[in-house]
């Protein structure tokens, strides 16, 4: 019971006293300044972010920023902020595009020690209490192409969250979630697998027998899955890219159908067309060979020019 209520209760036997006290209190309250707008405008998202930041700091972490874009919220540290801020809008658009209705809200957080080697990006659906997805960051965000790496890790975490809410049949078939952004996992490997595989359906598919290609990707309902999980992930990603908005919802809509039918529903076209597109991309892939890393060439040219400049500028010495 508050102090005012106690006083009013004690004054109840005295006629008119309680009303007089109440009028005085109201007039005094009117003279006080209004409560701060910042304190009254806190929404649940801001409160959650503050709670997460406090929990991280009490555990020795250093979260400093909350980035929000559409259905994605990211708690990050000073070091990673710039990199993730650049790709969060793209991730948000890709995530939202997978669902026919409003996309589920996702909470992402950078966790780990201050020296970079133990950092992890974790993710959960906002209504979940525990983080359900994680991928290791390592020190790659300080490497030569942090944006591509950040795009890939965010894609991996979002892919894990996608699969976390899929039916058991899809989870068993796919194992790793399809990444909604970044280079699809397995796109680089597919050309190598197609070139080197000795499995019968894959060899036949590679050599031009298109009727054997669905079996190579595990779409024929058989137990043998010749191509790797990464190749199947690339196939699902191709279906999501081709299907446009709501493709993921359509993929989940009929869990009792065959994987081939589900991919067709998601992509809006037969899975053979998706396989043809992947095969054409793999055939055109030039990720191998000596020219695979052009950065090394430019760096070498730079060092060459520097050495020549030093010698020519310094001249020859006895």
């Amino acid at each position, binding site marked *: 019971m508050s102090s005012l209520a106690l006083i009013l209760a004690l004054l109840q036997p005295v006629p008119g006293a309680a009303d007089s006290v109440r009028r005085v209190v109201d007039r005094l309250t009117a003279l006080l300044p209004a409560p701060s707008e910042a304190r009254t405008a806190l929404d649940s998202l801001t409160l959650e972010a503050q709670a997460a930041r406090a929990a991280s700091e009490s555990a020795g972490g250093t979260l400093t920023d909350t980035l929000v874009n559409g259905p994605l919220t990211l708690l990050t540290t000073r070091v990673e902020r710039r990199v993730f801020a650049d790709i969060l809008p793209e991730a948000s658009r890709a995530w939202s595009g997978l669902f026919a209705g409003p996309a589920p809200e996702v909470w992402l957080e950078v966790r780990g020690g201050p020296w970079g080697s133990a950092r992890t990006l974790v993710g959960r659906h906002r209504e979940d209490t525990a983080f359900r997805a994680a991928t290791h960051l390592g020190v790659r965000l300080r490497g030569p192409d942090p944006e591509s790496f950040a795009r890939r890790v965010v894609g991996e975490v979002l892919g894990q969250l996608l699969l976390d809410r899929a039916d058991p049949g899809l989870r068993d078939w796919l194992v790793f979630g399809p990444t909604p952004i970044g280079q699809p996992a397995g796109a680089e490997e597919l050309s190598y697998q197609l*070139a080197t595989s000795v499995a019968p359906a894959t060899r036949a598919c590679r050599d031009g027998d298109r009727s054997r290609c669905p079996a190579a990707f595990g779409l024929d309902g058989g137990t043998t899955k010749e191509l790797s999980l990464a190749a199947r992930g690339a196939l699902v990603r191709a279906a999501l890219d081709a299907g446009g908005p709501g493709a993921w919802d359509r993929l989940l809509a009929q869990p009792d159908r065959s994987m081939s039918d589900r991919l067709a529903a998601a992509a809006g076209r037969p899975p053979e067309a998706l396989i043809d597109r992947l095969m054409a991309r793999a055939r055109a892939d030039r990720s191998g060979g000596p020219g695979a*890393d052009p950065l090394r*060439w430019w*760096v070498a040219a730079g*060092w060459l020019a520097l050495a020549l400049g030093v010698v020519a500028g310094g001249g*020859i010495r006895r």
Partner: protein
Amino acid sequence: MLSAMIRLHWKSSRAWVLAAIAAVVALPIVSVALAWPHDSADVASFLARLDAWSLFYPAVAGVLGAVMAGLTWRSDRRGDFVYALTLPIERWRYVWYRFLSGAMLIASVAAALWLAALLTVATTPRAAFLHAYPTALAAKFGLATLAVFSASFALVALPGRVRQVGARAILALIALQALVFLLGWQGNWLVPVLEALTDRFGPLGILGGRWMLIDV
């Protein structure tokens, strides 16, 4: 003057250049022939063996670049640069001609590799999803040799005393590292230095990466 320099450089280094040409002509032919699998469908082992053979390309590039740089300045060092310093030519132009003469001989070796790679690729049946990279291989070989050549060129052009002090310091560091290793102490400074020299941004980073003539 440049043509005279090239002639003199050729005379002093022709044995090495001819040996390098023989090596780079043989490498693609021998590597593809020896890597070829008994079962033509076993592409994975073919690529693995070809990858192992491809290590010889950066090795030849490194040796050729270092030797050419040493031979470039050998005659001038013998004469203590007296003749070079008395020539009526700017120093930077003289250095540039020296560099160019070495670079042109290196380019001839890279051209030989390119022709041999083209011939090998033309006569080798390729499985689907495999591609040949003869031009990229020859260009990378030329650039890698030039990179080693330019680094060695700069080092060899240093004054003799500086080179002696530097060489002794490096030998002392290597000896100290070996001693630390033998005594079981913690301490490793050579490996980070080597990694810095050969990673993607190092001066010798071009020697890394893929060197396969046939790849996915």
